[in-house]
Structures are given as C-alpha cells and as structure tokens.
C-alpha cells in the first residue's frame, strides 16, 4: 500500500516534469503566454507528488513496513525512531529520493520567490529544474526504485550499517545534498539567460544569494563529514582524499571561485564567460560526484553498489556538459566587449588570481582522482594515486589562497596606489612577521607550517586592522561605542563583513589542518595490564580489558588511565565492537580534545580477554579542535552575509 502510493506518485511526478519541459517550448513556439503558467504548475505538481512519495518512504521506514525491500535493508524492529528516519539516506535508492526531494523543494522556492520577477527568464529556469528533476525521477522510477517490494514479507529487517548509526550521520548527507542541489539554482538561471540570450547582469546578482547558501551547505557538509570520519571511523584522520571525498569537495572549489569572480562581474562587467563556465562546472561536478559514488568505476572505501545508475549518471553528465558548453559557445558573441584589467595590483587581479588558484586546485584534484582510469585506459597499468599526491599538490595552492584572502578584501579596485597598499597592509604585515619570528624562535622549525601560520596571522591581522580603522572612524563620526559601531558596520555592508568573518573561519580551519598535518605524533604499542606508555606530556596506563554483550553487538573495551602532565584526564575506553553479520569488528576510538592538541586512542587489537594484553594506537594531533571551531565561525559569517537587510536600509542585493 505504502509502496504503491510512493511509486505512483513518482510516476505522476515524472509526467509533471515532462510537462514542465514541454510547456515553455510550446509557449515559445506558439507565442501563447498561457503555457508559461504550465511550467509553474508542473513544478508545483512535482513538489506535491515528490513530497508525498518521500513521506511514504519515511512512513514505510518508521512503521517498519517490511514488504518494501528498502525498508528491510535499512531497518530492523529494534532500530530506534530517529535511525529509522535516517534510513531514508542510508542507501542508494533512498538517498536519490532525498536528492530529488530537496531539488524540488529548491525549485518550488525559486518559483514562489520570483513569481513576479525575471518574467522573461523564469519559464526557462523552471524548465531546467524540470529537466534535472525528470532525470532523477527517471532514475528513481526505473533504475533504483526505493519502493520495490519483497515477497514473502520477512519477519525482520537487516538493519542500517552500524557505522551510520551516529548523530553526525543524520546531518552529513542531507547537508551535502542540499549543497549539491543548491548549485542547481545558479545553473538553471545561467542556462535560462543563455537560452533567452539576455546576458545582462541582473540574473547573476539574483543567483549570488543562492550560491552562498549552496556554498554554505557544501562547506558544512564536508566539515561534518570530516568530523564524522574523525569521530566515528576511528582511524585518527579526517580526510583521506578518497575519490568519494574528492567528489564531495570538488564542487566547492568552482562555487568558491564563482562567489569571488561574480563580484568582479558586478563591479566591472568582466569575466562573463568565465563565470558562466564556473557555474556549469560546479553543477556538472555534483552530477559527476554522484556518478563516481554510484558507478564503482574507481576503488573507494565508501563505494556504494554499482549498477545501471552509474551509466545513467554518466549519460546525464555528458548531456549537461555538451548542452551547456555548446550553448555557451553558441552565445559567446553576446558576451564580448569586456573591459580589461587596468593594473596587476588591484582587487580584480587578486580575485582573478584567486580564481586561477581555485581552478588549478580543482584540476589537480580531478586529475588525481581519475588518473587510475586514464592510466589503465592508455597504458594498461593499474595504479592508484595516494594521499601524498593530493597533499603535495594542494598545500602550496591553498597557501597562495590564504595569502590572497588577506590581500583581496582590502586592496583597491582598478589600480591600487602605493598609499593604499601602505595603509592597508603595512601594519598587518609587520604583525604577521613578528609572529613568524616568535614562532620560528619558539617551536616551528619547518618551512611549510611556518609559512602557513604566518599567512594565517597575516589574514587575521588585515581583517582586525581594517575593522578597527572602520570602527574608529564611526566612533569619530557618530560617537558610537565599539560594539554598536561594529553592528552598524556589519548592517551597512553585510556582504563584506559576513565575508570577512567567513575568512576568519577558514583561517581557523587552515590552522587546524596545518597543525595536525605537520606535528602529529603516532605511536603503537602492546601493553600488559598495569604497564604505562609515555608520549610527550601524556602518560597512559593500561587498566585491563572488559567484555560485554550489548543489545546489538559484542563489545571489548580497553581501559586506559590518562594523565597529561600529572593532570588526571580520567579513564579512556576505546573499544572494538563485533556485530553479528559483519565480517570485521568496528573500532570505537576515543579522544580528548583541547585547544592545543587532541589525544586520540584506538584499540587495535587484544589477546584473549583473560590474558589482558592490548595493542593501542595513539595519536596526538595538535590544533585540530580549531578546525571544528572554524566551522562555527563560518556559520556565523554566512548568517551575517545573508541576513535579510533592514527595510529601506542597507543595500539591496536582489535584482
């Protein structure tokens, strides 16, 4: 019953989507404006039907309707309520359903918000949404159907992968999908503008907010993914440069580039073709990511099962790339007449360089990800590209980026005078150099981390210095206090100050990465009961093994009494969990976090339980906590940037 409702809704939604594709074309051919209304109705219809289908699947999961194969594979009677709901994105069929649902919610929002604006563009915008939605509905209906039924109905389900039973897992995929789907909005506007041939700047201003929103969810999705990896997977790292992780990260790069270069287009009407290309690439990468995850063409530790879904996504990717770039090439004449750069020392060129670096990073990561395929196709030799490649290639690029993060927001447009440079950068540069000297004398001896920390200090100094100058000016003019001056400044120019706060957040993340990459300590030892391991300031005493039968699994934990410089940190108990039906135990690492460093303990093996010997892996990861803090700062900054401006006050971002 539930399955029937869901499946029929999907089929009907597919019909709506096809209608939504045809309507604007008919309107264009016949000149009958009424067909345009059809495009809106089609979106509304899909919204209702897909919501119904998604609700049916959630209902099936919550009520453990084991006549649905998907429910069997993702829940058991014992599964708690919230993990039943998260079962929606526990596997391929459901996550595609969720993707489609988010997509159609975004489409509905766009249709509703711009019902009286962009009259010429909107039908085509909605058509693009319907095309993307039709593709996903097609996949859900015919290639990866979450409503497939089983007969005879089993008594109990198989259950969610135990690793997915984690609170972060509830947030990670929906955040990423929201980020991915959010990028469809600028793409739809870009395509509509190309179709209509109206390539003035108003649409691009409209898409900025949407791109920031998508960017925000992408950033959070990746950070939460990294946190999940660190917190749950128990291998001590947070990023493995695995193809699937790269797939989630890659769209972030052109999206970030676009957010910067769009400002150049707004101000100087330059880089039109470039910006359109960035949008197309960002959107295509979201589809590419799904292709990579679902096709099994690359070996990944996250790989989902293969099947026809991969081929469909590849075909869709081909259509998108050829269609979009073909259209762009066809319209390129409309995009000419761009003014040139006035000077190499200007904000335009800083942003341009920022774009070049981001796209270079994208290219290198993309190349490294698919290189095993290229190599096997061309020379026939199987190989893999390891994490060191990605670290080596991206580290310098990201360092340049950090430097530009300090320069870009402060340098003048068009042509920076020597005076401008001196005023904005002299003192921050001096401050950063002082910090560099202190660090070098103190403890940082290696070049790359020293450079990283110095650049982080430089960016922070430029931001603080610039804000301090502005606050001083306001106090002088309006006689405000420091705090109210800050609020007024942020309110007056939300985009700028929001952006600066986001930059501070990125600095914190870079700090965490630089610290944990360069100065991690890793130690492995087998300890008998009562024996002590000393690593740096930490003293770890092994107290013995404990075994227990848990409701869902058998658990062996090692108890370790931990002291930091004589200061008692309590008993840490990393564990190994043995699930029936799983081939290998799942490690449960534990860690103690502080602002200077994390202590991370992994139980990697043990003797028979009576013998009480355990092999412990210990990691000390400096500054890692700053990474997660940086995430919160980014949330704050984004909120400042997109907070609805006061009526009448502030500047209107919307076109």
């Amino acid at each position, binding site marked *: 019953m539930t399955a029937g409702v869901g499946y029929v809704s999907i089929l009907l939604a597919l019909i709506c989507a096809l209608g939504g594709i045809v309507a604007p074309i008919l309107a264009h051919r016949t000149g009958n404006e009424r067909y345009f209304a059809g495009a809106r109705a089609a979106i509304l219809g899909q919204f209702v039907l897909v919501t119904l289908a998604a609700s049916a699947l959630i209902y099936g999961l919550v009520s453990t309707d084991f006549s649905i194969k998907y429910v069997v594979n993702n829940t058991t009677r014992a599964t708690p309520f919230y993990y039943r709901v998260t079962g929606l994105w526990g596997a391929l069929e459901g996550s595609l359903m969720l993707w489609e649902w988010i997509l159609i919610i975004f489409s509905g929002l766009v249709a509703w918000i711009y019902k009286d604006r962009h009259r010429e563009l909107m039908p085509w915008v909605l058509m693009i949404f319907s095309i993307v939605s039709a593709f996903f509905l097609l996949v859900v209906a015919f290639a990866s159907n979450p409503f497939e039924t089983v007969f005879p109905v089993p008594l109990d389900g198989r259950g969610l*992968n135990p*690793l*997915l039973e984690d609170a972060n897992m509830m947030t990670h995929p929906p955040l990423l999908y929201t980020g991915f789907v959010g990028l469809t909005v600028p793409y739809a506007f870009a395509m509509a503008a190309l179709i209509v041939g109206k390539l003035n700047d108003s649409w691009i201003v409209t898409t900025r907010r949407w791109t920031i929103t998508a960017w925000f969810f992408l950033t959070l999705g990746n950070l939460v993914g990294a946190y999940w*990896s660190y917190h749950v*997977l*128990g*291998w*001590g*790292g947070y990023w*493995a*440069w*695995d193809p699937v992780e790269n797939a989630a990260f890659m769209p972030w790069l052109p999206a970030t580039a676009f957010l910067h270069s769009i400002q150049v287009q707004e101000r100087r009407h330059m880089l039109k073709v470039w910006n359109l290309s960035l949008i197309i690439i960002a959107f295509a990468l979201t589809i590419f990511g799904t292709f990579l995850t679902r096709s099994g063409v690359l070996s*990944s*530790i*996250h*790989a*989902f099962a293969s099947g026809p879904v991969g081929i469909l996504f590849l075909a869709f990717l081909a259509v998108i790339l050829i269609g979009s770039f073909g259209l762009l090439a066809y319209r390129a004449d409309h995009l000419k007449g761009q003014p040139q750069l006035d000077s190499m020392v200007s904000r335009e060129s800083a942003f341009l360089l920022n774009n*070049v670096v981001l796209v*270079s990073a994208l290219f*290198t990561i993309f*190349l*490294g990800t698919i*290189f095993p395929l290229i190599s096997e196709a061309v020379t026939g*030799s*199987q*190989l*893999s*590209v*390891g*994490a*060191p*490649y*990605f*670290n*080596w*290639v991206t580290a*310098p*690029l990201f360092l340049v980026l950090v430097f530009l993060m300090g320069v870009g927001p402060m340098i003048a447009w068009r042509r920076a005078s020597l005076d401008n440079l001196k005023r904005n950068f002299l003192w921050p540069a001096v401050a950063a150099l002082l910090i560099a000297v202190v660090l070098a004398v103190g403890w940082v001896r290696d070049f790359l981390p020293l450079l990283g920390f110095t650049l982080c200090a430089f960016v922070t100094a430029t931001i603080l210095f610039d804000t301090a100058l502005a606050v001083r000016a306001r106090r002088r003019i309006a006689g405000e206090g420091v705090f109210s001056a800050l609020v007024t400044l942020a309110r007056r120019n939300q985009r700028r100050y929001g952006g600066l706060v986001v930059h501070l957040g990125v600095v914190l993340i870079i700090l965490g*990465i630089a610290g*944990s*990459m*360069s*100065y*991690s*300590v*890793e130690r*492995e030892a*087998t300890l008998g009961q009562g024996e002590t391991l000393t690593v740096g300031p930490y003293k770890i005493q092994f107290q013995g093994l404990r075994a227990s039968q848990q409701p869902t699994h058998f658990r062996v934990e090692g108890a370790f009494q931990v002291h930091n410089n004589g200061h008692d940190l309590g008993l840490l108990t990393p564990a190994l969990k043995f699930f029936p039906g*799983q*081939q*290998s*135990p*799942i*490690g449960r690492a534990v860690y103690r976090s502080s602002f200077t460093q994390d202590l991370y303990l992994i139980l*990697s093996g043990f003797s028979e339980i009576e013998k009480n*010997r355990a*092999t412990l*892996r210990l*990691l000390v*990861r400096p500054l890692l906590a700053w990474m997660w803090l940086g995430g919160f700062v980014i949330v704050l900054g984004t909120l400042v940037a997109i907070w609805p401006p006061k009526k009448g006050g502030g500047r209107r971002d919307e076109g």
Partner: protein
Amino acid sequence: MSRAKRFIIGGLVILAALVYLIYGGMQEAIVYFVTPAELKANDAGSKGKFLRLGGMVVKGSLQRDPDGLTYRFELTDGSAAIPIYFRGVPPDLFTEGKGAVVEGKIGDKGVFVASAIMAKHSEEYSPHEQGKESSPRSFIPGKEKTKP
C-alpha cells in the same frame, strides 16, 4: 612589453608551476598494482617503486614476532609467492588463506617490505564504510613523511 604578452607570460609561469606540482606529486604518490607473478618476473625493474601487491596469504606462512607488531608471511597468486615483512597492526580481516593487498617496496633479498596491509573484504555484500579502519593507506596527517 605589451599587455597581452604579459598575460601570456603570467599564464605560462602558472602553468609551469602547476605541471611541476602535478609531476612531483605523482612521482611521490603513484602506487602501481602488481601480482606476485609479475613482481617475480620483473624483480630488478620494480626496485625502488612503490607497489601494491595483491594475492592470497599462503597458509602456514604467517609468523608473528614476540613483540606482537612484526609479521612475516607470503603472498601468492597461485604461480609465484613473495615473502612479505610488515611492522604494524594489520586490519581485522587479515588472516591466512584470505585475500590481502599490501603496499610497500621490494627490499633486499627479494623481501617485500610492506608499509600497509589492506585486507580484501567482500565487495558487494558488506557495507564498504566499515573498510575505513582497515585501509591504513588513508591519509593520516604526519604519517606520510615516514612512508619509505
């Protein structure tokens, strides 16, 4: 110098830096996949290269040193067997008679010195995510420097 020329030169410099980065990175991180038979056949040519070797752990060959962290075993593809030396903690799925993939370099006397063992686990039936802790090739910051 004209503006266009300056741009071209700037672009070339950036391109050269990029090519250098990619080339250098690849030298460092490319891992070739070989079978024990292929390795036997091309012993000399494989020296110094970072390799990934896949096969079955020969039954009865697995020895664990008293320190509990050093393992010696042989890996076979049915036609040739390669002795392996490994120091560290192998993944949970690692046992005799099962498939395993090791990463490392061929050392003296034809012994393959593995820096990581990745046990093969079922491809289609068990969730792949669980493989994370059994894939030490993953990037653990700070560790990549110690790789041979």
